[in-house]
């Protein structure tokens, strides 16, 4: 056991009682499953154990497919038209490769969500790249203004969703552990004065932040509405996770939030509508 902090010199032996070894059968079967996961595409770059399939026909088919996939990937990367066409064909909007996200944001994206970051939304189709990152940058500038909190958009390719065909945009919100929660709520209330009363949310400041920002950061009407729809699941999840009570039934709250989202005037620039930017 590792004990490296003098503050934990108290008797903490009881804390280990929950510790146990995983079942050997589980460890062995999981290892087998992982070995089976080694697909040819990964093995070409990763594992020296990769061997070509014996069936020559399949080799050629695979090679041709990979060649087209490579050409498509290049076209997709360099051409907005190809991206737009692909999204249109697949019904996907807002697909943002990690590299583009990194470049657009101008700072290093985290590999994981550190403590203090709440996952508030997973939007696969709601946000376009343009409004997405304008919003994100404005949000960051809010932090630079000394508000003590910041938001980033975290574009992820496929590790955070079970659907590898859809790139997810993970929206996270950061709160500082030392923040004055009341001051933040008051700040949000002031901001929301411009948007209308979405009462009921004040008992749930984290959720409120999410709704408030998400709804008026985006500039596309459909996107806003869709975003709110997406929030329904997130809200329910967060309510469960934190046992946060609302002052009104969640469906009523969502209906209000949706109405507010649709009433927000469109702007030529998402930055224009961003808070305090």
């Amino acid at each position, binding site marked *: *056991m*590792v004990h*490296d*902090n*003098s*503050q*934990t010199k*108290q*008797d*903490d*032996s*009881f*804390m*280990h*009682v*929950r*510790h*146990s*070894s*995983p*079942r050997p059968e*589980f*460890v062995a079967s*999981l*290892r087998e*499953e*992982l070995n089976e*996961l*080694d697909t040819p595409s*990964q093995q070409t*770059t*990763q594992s020296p154990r990769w061997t070509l399939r014996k069936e020559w026909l399949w080799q050629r088919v695979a090679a041709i497919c990979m060649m087209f996939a490579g050409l498509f990937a290049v076209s997709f990367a360099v051409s907005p038209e190809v991206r737009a066409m692909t999204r249109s064909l697949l019904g996907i909007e807002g697909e943002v490769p990690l590299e583009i996200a990194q470049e657009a944001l101008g700072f*290093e994206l*985290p*590999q*994981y*969500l*550190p*403590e*203090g*970051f709440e*996952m508030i939304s997973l939007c696969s189709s709601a946000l376009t790249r343009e409004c997405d990152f304008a919003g994100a940058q404005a949000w960051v500038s809010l932090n630079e203004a000394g508000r003590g909190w910041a938001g980033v958009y975290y574009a992820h390719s*496929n*590790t*955070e969703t079970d659907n590898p065909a859809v790139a997810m945009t993970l929206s996270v919100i950061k709160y500082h*552990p030392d923040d004055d929660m009341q001051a933040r709520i008051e700040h949000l209330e002031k901001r929301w004065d411009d948007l209308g009363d979405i009462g009921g949310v004040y008992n749930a400041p984290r959720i409120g932040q999410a709704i408030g920002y998400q709804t008026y950061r985006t500039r596309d009407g459909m996107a806003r509405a869709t975003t709110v729809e997406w929030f329904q*699941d*997130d809200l329910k*999840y967060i309510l*469960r*996770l*934190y046992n946060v009570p609302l002052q009104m039934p969640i469906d009523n709250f969502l209906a209000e939030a949706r109405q507010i989202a649709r009433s927000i005037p469109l702007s030529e620039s998402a930055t224009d509508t961003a808070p305090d930017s």
Partner: protein
Amino acid sequence: MSDDPQIPDWDAIYDEQVARLYNYFLYRVNQQTTAEDLTASTFKRAWMNRTQFDPQRGSVAAWLFGIARHVLVNYYRQRPPHMMSIDDAYRAASPHNTEHTVQQRIDADMLGRLLQELPQREQEVIALKYGAEMTNRDIASLTGLSESNVGTILHRTVNKLHALIKQRGEYHYGS
């Protein structure tokens, strides 16, 4: 075993990390079968995306536990908390356990239940410390908290749990 020091030895990593990940989840969800499922999900995601791992940006353990925390969040999204699987319930009530094992089981379950009642941040720090057996420094690095803050949270939380257990008079460790 990889000959290139830049390429991680994923088999060795699996051996090193599987128990840590499993216990991290066990401390978080208090269910053996769920902890196994979440461990498997984490490793599968990591395995499928291991070419994306960049050693310049952190250790393999930090990367894995970052994925694990996402997996946990997704788990909570999909399932209501405080559910016990049939398998876990069966094991907890198994008549084949010896008295000592039963008592250990009760102690472990009680600790598990108390952990579930903690705020999320405390649960996370405790799970990383006593489940994943991370150092305070590693926990700080993973969570974004300061090292001293981690120590303070641990100290207070352990004290709180200790008091709760003594108050309930059910715990038998060391006896």
